[in-house]
């Protein structure tokens, strides 16, 4: 009973507390905004359910098949998925535009331009060889109507619901006309151009969902970290010393077996050595930021969460810009507007050239800047944690980037780092014991639990993975759900750039958009989009999840004996 109470108490602090403080507090918003948020959250839950139940959903009716010869191979999807996806994209755009109109002029302008571009590219894809006639022309008129309405709403703002409907109507009108153009194209060509066109357009649109997918990796690890700390701490503080040692010994043996049984890419020795080098750099950053004196797991998780989303956007910036340029290229080419040829090389530079590498360099530089700035200014615990989180994330981002660059003398892997960490933890425990201030067995076992998480950071998404038959999608689902539950903190405070309602709508629009893309990729079995999102989530796990685990380990290991 005592152990049960302990687990409950620590789970409450590790999992329930972040939800309590981070969830959307609709009492702080207008009734209109709260109603819209409630509806959006319901839609979001339905979308995640559709992702989890993709296989039974696909078996409900006949599939529409088309093989366009594109890289993704044959497509087979439920026919109703196309209009449903288009309607959902319309809802996401309307949420984002309505929210942005309540923010800074630059944010409002950017959102309206992006929405107009997304609608234009869908219309251009549906227009085929005659983009400026029939339904597409009416659709372009609706897009212009959207821009005009947005300008009017900026001046004469009403309730969130009224503004949302005012934005939604031209948006959906444009999409209805695009759908009609798709069908007309299919009738004249004999090929399901609607399926092909929507698939191509969503490939570009999916780039906009990359930051949330990256952050979902961190969120999934955050859930795992909360569970590990909660369960182990609660269990161990109320069990006998002998049982604790038994669990500790079993943990070490289990860890070694788990890490060594699976095949590693490349040399194991090199991976462990590179993991050790990374750990040494992390330890250096940890000591330089002087975060030792304020060790607190909750603060560590919060600090990593604060830098996570902005870093994800910087990391994904080249891909997002490339995707936007790709969409612009489609519109320019379809409407025979000059400039289309200039866009293509720039798009390729960002998407397949050195763009992603530039994003990594930018994020590493940005994190180092944050670490130095927070370290020099932050005298309190929060500042030191932010500095440490930024510094550690910069180290791991560098380690991952070097591995991606395939340097012959560098091979970084979570498994190699986990083994290096295991050796380091046991060595540190021995040193502490020798010095006479040994680590408590409970702390040691929690750290070992976290080390296990490092190897398989998304292990706690396993129940969802069993349903989805794909662990990467499961991580994304868990991360998105956790994001919906805990990302609401930003909507609690008014900032210079965004009002509370604006932040609420933007966050919801962003999460809903990513869930829509994931639903399309899962129910429509779009391997390219799915693998793109899954790769982003895996990168988020590798960089931000690993950094969070290492930061927590450092924090726990440096605790003075209780």
């Amino acid at each position: 009973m005592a152990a049960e109470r302990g687990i409950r108490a620590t789970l409450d602090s590790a999992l329930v507390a972040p939800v309590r403080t981070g969830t959307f507090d609709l009492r702080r918003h207008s009734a209109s905004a709260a109603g819209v948020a409630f509806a959006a959250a319901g839609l979001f839950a339905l979308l995640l359910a559709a992702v989890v139940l993709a296989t039974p959903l696909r078996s409900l009716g006949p599939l529409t098949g088309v093989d366009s010869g594109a890289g993704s191979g044959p497509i087979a999807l439920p026919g109703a998925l196309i209009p449903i996806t288009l309607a959902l994209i319309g809802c996401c755009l309307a949420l984002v535009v309505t929210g942005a109109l309540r923010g800074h002029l630059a944010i409002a302008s950017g959102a309206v331009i992006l929405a107009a571009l997304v609608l234009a590219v869908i219309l251009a894809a549906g227009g085929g060889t005659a983009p400026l006639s029939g339904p597409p022309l009416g659709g372009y008129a609706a897009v212009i109507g959207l821009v005009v309405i947005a300008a009017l709403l900026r001046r004469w703002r009403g309730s969130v619901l009224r503004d949302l409907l005012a934005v939604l109507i031209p948006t959906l009108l444009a999409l209805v006309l695009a759908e009609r153009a798709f069908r007309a194209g299919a009738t004249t060509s004999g090929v399901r151009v609607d399926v092909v066109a929507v698939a191509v357009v969503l490939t570009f649109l999916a780039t906009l969902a990359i930051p949330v997918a990256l952050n979902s990796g961190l969120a999934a690890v955050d859930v795992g970290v909360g569970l590990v700390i909660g369960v182990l701490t609660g269990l161990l503080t109320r069990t006998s010393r002998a049982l604790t040692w038994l669990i500790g010994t079993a943990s070490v043996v289990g860890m070694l077996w788990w890490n060594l049984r699976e095949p590693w890419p490349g040399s194991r020795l090199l991976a462990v050595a590179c993991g050790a080098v990374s750990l040494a750099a992390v330890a250096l950053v940890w000591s330089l930021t002087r975060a030792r004196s304020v060790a607190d797991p909750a603060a560590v998780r919060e600090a990593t969460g604060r830098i996570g989303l902005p870093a994800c956007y910087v990391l994904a910036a080249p891909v997002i810009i490339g995707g936007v340029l790709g969409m612009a290229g489609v519109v320019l080419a379809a409407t025979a507007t000059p400039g289309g040829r200039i866009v293509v090389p720039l798009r390729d530079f960002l998407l397949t050239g050195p763009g992603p590498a530039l994003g990594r360099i930018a994020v590493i530089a940005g994190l180092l800047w944050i670490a130095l700035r927070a370290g020099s200014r932050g005298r309190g615990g929060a500042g030191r944690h932010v500095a440490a989180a930024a510094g550690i994330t910069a180290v791991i981002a560098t380690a991952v980037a070097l591995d991606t660059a395939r340097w012959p003398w560098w091979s970084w892997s979570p498994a190699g780092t986990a083994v290096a960490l295991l050796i380091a933890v046991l060595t540190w425990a021995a040193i502490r014991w020798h010095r006479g201030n040994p680590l408590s067995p409970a702390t040691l076992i929690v750290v070992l639990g976290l080390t296990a998480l490092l190897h398989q950071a998304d292990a706690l998404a396993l129940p969802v993975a069993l349903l989805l038959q794909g662990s990467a999608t499961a991580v994304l689902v868990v991360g998105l759900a956790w994001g919906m539950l805990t990302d609401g903190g930003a909507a609690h405070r008014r900032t210079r750039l965004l009002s509370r309602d604006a932040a609420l709508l933007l966050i919801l629009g962003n999460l809903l958009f990513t869930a829509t893309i994931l639903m399309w990729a899962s129910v429509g079995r779009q391997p390219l989009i799915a693998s793109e999102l899954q790769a982003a989530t895996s990168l988020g796990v590798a960089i931000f999840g690993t950094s969070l685990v290492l930061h927590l380990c450092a924090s726990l290991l440096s605790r003075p004996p209780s």
Partner: protein
Amino acid sequence: MLATAAFIMAVASLLAAAGRPAEPPAAARWLATPGTRVIVDDTGAVIATVSSTVVPLGGAVHGVPVPELATTLLTALAASGIDPETAVVERSFTVIPTGDGGVSAGLALTVADEQAVWEALSWDTQGGVLAYLPLREQLPANPARTRTWSGSGLTNGISPFRITGEVDRAEGDCATVTTRTEQEVPGGPPLVTGLRTRWCIGRGQLNAVDLDSGSTVSVGADIPAGPLPTPPTGGVSTSAPLPGVELGAVTALAGLTVGADRATGDLLAWTAAPDPVLRWWHHPGGVITALGAGDGLIVVGTSQRAVHAFDALGQLRWTTGQPDVAVGRITIAGGRVTVPLATGATVTLAASSGAAAPRPGVAPSGG
């Protein structure tokens, strides 16, 4: 309120576009049930093995899985005044006995509307286009003794033709009709061909007799039991493998090249160049999403979540449904067919029957 109503209408419009099933027209009952059919000559020798598909047009001609045929069909429908909203199309392999005792053949569209069953051919034995514009009326929707009809048009929009037809016999579920086509030939006498065809409800065209030569072909014969017949050597010849084919996945079996047409979802088997001969043709339904060959079988997965196995003669050996579409390369070895699915799972089937088979066990390591 107005804005809310407009919003609801827009969403309803988007969702309504999800699909509207069409009622089959009256004449559609004469089309064959989709399936595999064997075509044999007078002596019982297999000429070809083909499968047919019935596609309701239902307001969108994109239901026709062949772009070239869809274009032909659209033109023909427009010229014939047939409403595509109320038509059903069957794609099949049509075999026509010729005056010299041989056969010519081609991929055909048979369209059924309220009035009649119409036909448009797409290719002849040399790969040339044989589109009849407007469509040829093959059978009235309600055939009755002494019923006659006539039509005229321009073949390929150039050469005038006239067609007359009459119902010879109509009893129960079957009808026998005779058609005569008079085709003008520049600088020569008109080419007259006569055909007597027998149709049955739900079974399509059962046989065709050339009225001049008396040669007959039978469609829908039973698949020969026992040892498989040798593939015919003088079958349907065409350019390699057919005009307009956009080949996707390709494999080989028993000296045949077997390829999937990306655009149409057809499965084609032809002999090697320099004189490729189309050996058999199937439209399993939807598009082909996975293909593999081995152990004397061609196995395909389709977007309709089905897996079909054909032998080297093009005969359907078995069909099985799967929870999702097969993707990528199907492997066949050791009596087992391994099919990767879009879910990420892999299913193992018995090559002999298509029944679910246990996965091959991992052999214990030695030492």
